[in-house]
């Protein structure tokens, strides 16, 4: 939250300069501000980002063997990401866990390299690529937006009062989600509610409410920060991709992953699922690798590994069911299959989040026992 406030502070002069400077200079304030921000708060991240940006762009530009270049870039960037994710960079990072923004800019660079391989990226300059990776609003919290769309916005960017107003609105919504819904309602009031339920000895209800509050709080906080990032981008004249689309209204688990952390789930679909499927011709392996990466992207731990596996099973079960005659039969007897689907999906998601709520596996098992009334 604190860093996000700093970003907001940095963005105010950036927004001002990016509109009052002559058009050809308007893209630079964001790059400079991101550079200054990183040099103050995370110089190691600035070094990594600068070096990988230069290497990625110029290798792809001048390489005679694009396949080898893309594979090398993806391996190197992913290795750097893993190196820090596994905690080997602690000595460099002092007290911090990861170089700031590495989870986002690494995945953006891999996306760029693969899209270059697919020849899907229009002609562009180094300045535009630099602007993409040093884009301050989405630096810390995403979304992992795509370069072609960003490039399109660079070209069509102009002052638009309606867009600016929409940006301010999104920032307001974002803060409302984080502060009112997340911090006050879910955390403060929510904890009070759970304490009261426990005091009144409604233990099952307290556990159930705690589980729901954890998931919903995670959503409003993350969606709120995404709103702020999207809002700040709009103030700079850029429309970046949405990260959430009412995920708790998903009617099945596959639908959920098209609504939750969209920029990451579509990234995994495009750059993990499709390649693995096309090589192995086995969709289950594709889903497995995608979800495992998606889980480990958050944290390299057994909790997230189990959480990912639960979702792999759920997705495959749902698809099996969806293409089976059972579904047609069941639908004949259910009044509103969509709402039944929403109920089941919501609860599956909420219960799966128990796995990542607590790092202690015994606590996790205890929670499941309480939910399933096995805690005798």
């Amino acid at each position, binding site marked *: 939250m604190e860093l996000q406030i700093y970003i907001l502070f940095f963005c105010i002069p950036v927004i001002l300069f990016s509109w009052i400077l002559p058009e050809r200079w308007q893209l630079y304030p964001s790059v400079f501000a991101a550079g200054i921000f990183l040099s103050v708060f995370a110089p190691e991240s600035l070094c990594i980002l600068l070096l990988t940006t230069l290497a990625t762009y110029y290798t792809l530009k001048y390489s005679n063997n694009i396949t080898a270049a893309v594979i090398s870039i993806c391996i190197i960037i992913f290795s750097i990401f893993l190196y820090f994710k596994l905690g080997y960079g602690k000595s460099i990072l002092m007290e911090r866990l990861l170089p700031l923004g590495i989870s986002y800019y690494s995945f953006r660079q891999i996306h760029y390299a*693969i899209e270059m*391989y*697919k020849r*899907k990226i*229009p002609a562009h300059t180094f300045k535009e690529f630099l602007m993409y990776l040093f884009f301050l609003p989405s630096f810390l919290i995403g979304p992992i937006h795509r370069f*072609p*769309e960003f490039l*399109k916005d660079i*070209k*069509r*960017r*102009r002052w638009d009062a*309606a867009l600016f107003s929409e940006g301010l609105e999104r920032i307001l919504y974002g803060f409302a989600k984080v502060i009112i819904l997340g911090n006050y309602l879910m955390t403060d009031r929510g904890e009070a509610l759970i304490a009261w339920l426990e005091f009144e000895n409604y233990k099952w209800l307290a556990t159930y409410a705690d589980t729901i509050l954890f998931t919903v709080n995670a959503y409003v906080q993350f969606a709120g920060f995404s709103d702020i990032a999207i809002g700040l981008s709009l103030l700079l004249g850029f429309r970046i991709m949405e990260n959430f689309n009412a995920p708790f209204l998903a009617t099945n688990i*596959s*639908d959920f*992953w*098209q609504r939750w952390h969209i920029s990451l789930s579509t990234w995994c*679909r*495009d750059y993990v*699922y*499709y*390649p693995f*499927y*096309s*090589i192995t011709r086995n*969709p289950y392996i*594709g*889903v497995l690798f*995608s979800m495992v990466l998606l889980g480990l992207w958050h944290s390299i731990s057994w909790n997230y590994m189990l959480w990912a596996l639960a979702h792999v099973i759920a*997705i495959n079960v749902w*698809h099996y069911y*969806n*293409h089976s005659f059972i579904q047609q039969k069941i639908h004949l007897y259910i009044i509103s299959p969509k709402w039944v689907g929403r109920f089941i999906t919501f609860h599956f998601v909420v219960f799966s989040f128990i796995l990542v709520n607590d790092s202690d596996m015994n606590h996790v098992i205890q929670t499941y026992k309480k939910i399933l009334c096995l805690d005798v």
Partner: protein
Amino acid sequence: MQIEELLNKSLNGDLTKKVFLEIIGKQYSYGTFFTDVVKINNLFHSKGLVEGDKMFISLKDEYDITLFFMAGLVSGVTVISVDPEINAFRAQKIVEQAAPEMCVLEEYLFEKWNINKEQQFCLSKKETQKKGSLFKKLLKNSASTDPTEDGDSYPAIMDSLSASMMTYKQPAPETIAYILFTSGTTSDPKGVMISQKNLWEHINTLTKVYGMNHQSRILNNLSLYHADGIIQGPVLAACCNATLVRPLKKFEIGLTGEFLTGIYKYRISHLVVVPAIISILYKFSENYEDSFESPDFKFVISVSAHIEEYLWTNFEKTFKTEIVNVYGLTETVAGSLFSGPDKTIKKIGTVGKPVDCLIKIVDQHNQEVPQGEEGELMIKGDHVFKGYYKNESATQLVLNNDWLSSGDLAIIDSEGFVKITGRKKNIVVVGGFNIHPEEISEVINTHPEIMESICIGVKDEVFGEKIIACIVAKDKSKMNKNILAAYLSEHLEHNKMPADILIYDELPKGLSGKVQIKEIEQSIYNNDAESPDAKFDLQKEIFRIAAISFKVEASNLSINDNSNSINGWDSMAHLHLVTKLEERFNTRFSAAEIMIMNNFKSIESILKKHTLNVV
């Protein structure tokens, strides 16, 4: 149209600082532009040019073309504008026929076209030496102090001309405003004469139909030597006190993205394009589908050629915007019938209904046919031209009691909408440009190794039609496609170059010795893998399989749909589709192919490669 009011508002009124033209990022205000117009008018006066005299212009710079054209319209000097790219023979013929009192040409064209500078007042466009802006300012005065050196060259002459407007008198309605040589053959060019009345009456119609006003911003990148480029561009913009934007030097496929992003960037309200450009924008729309989602944008104006119904419908659906189709001829200034934007005159697939003019459909005996029957479309109105310049016989062929024969066959449906069904005149419309096939044959036949030739128009997916040249070489000739193409590129304008050259031993002829065009057309279609009749409906088959995979109705699918636009298109459904397509077409996609198969366009293009030898 009150020209005097426009001049006053531009020179001293509320339009002075308003942007009139925005050409490749450079802005020109109404004040700047019309000050130059006044200067050119003063030049006409000083050189003794009066209303009705003719000025021949052929320039490259878009500001210059607009300036001289508008100056001619304002003063009543008839403008004859000709593309610098046309071949020398045709240019000479036009100058010879028009006998202008003044010529404004690129410097090199005087020599290339062998124009005699003694016969009229000549102004040559000289490239100004580029200097740094500081030196430019310092040297500005000294550069213009030698009138003898640059006295007859533009733009140097502008510094010596007065910018004060003399007492203004609007040209008479019957004065010829401009002559466009867009039809006829090289040896017999036909100049379409448009009077001041024709022009301004039609401008009023266009303004009314399009609902244009001072807030409008028109993007029209069409050639300024084409009626739809100059009239529906700067002339229309000036009359509405609007702004004309021309973001590109020339529209090219590689610049589709820039063109589409320009809609939002430049706050465009009206986009004027030909169907060939619409087709290209549609084909390369991936990731640009939101280009028209701008609060300022009103609609796309399709001009110059017939737009296919499927393209019209799919374009509107893909870009979520509206196309207004304009049917007209150079002989009717720009338009006559409009399909949209008003719902009462819009029907996709038709040219709509006439606005401010009368129409009728007649048979070969010039008798009106009953509703629903095919005949030739006739147009009558204040915008119909005066005739072909110095060509009474050609005029009589198309003008009968003020009714203009359009040369197009049409029917009127029960709701009063007009549908074009064919063409009576021998014209091929390539990307909005009317081309006489005889003109190309005429040039081909000048090659010493050609015995005979015929050019025909056949359907083309992007340009609407394309020209195919069918030739018979002389005995022992080593003639081939490359030799002839090289020859033609020297003697023909770029847009008139045949799309293909077919070499025959002899052309099929009937008993009377006439070339059997139908037979040639059939043989071309038979040999063409892309022939519409022979084409397997791959799209339909993809949609059928996709409908099963995504659990949607096939009829709801469009070629522009992608994994984001269809709810059921998730990773598993994608796999289902890929597998089913592989089974259906007995093929196997590579990893790279599967990765880019996230929209129907790429699926179709990949399948085309795979199924070329299967279907």
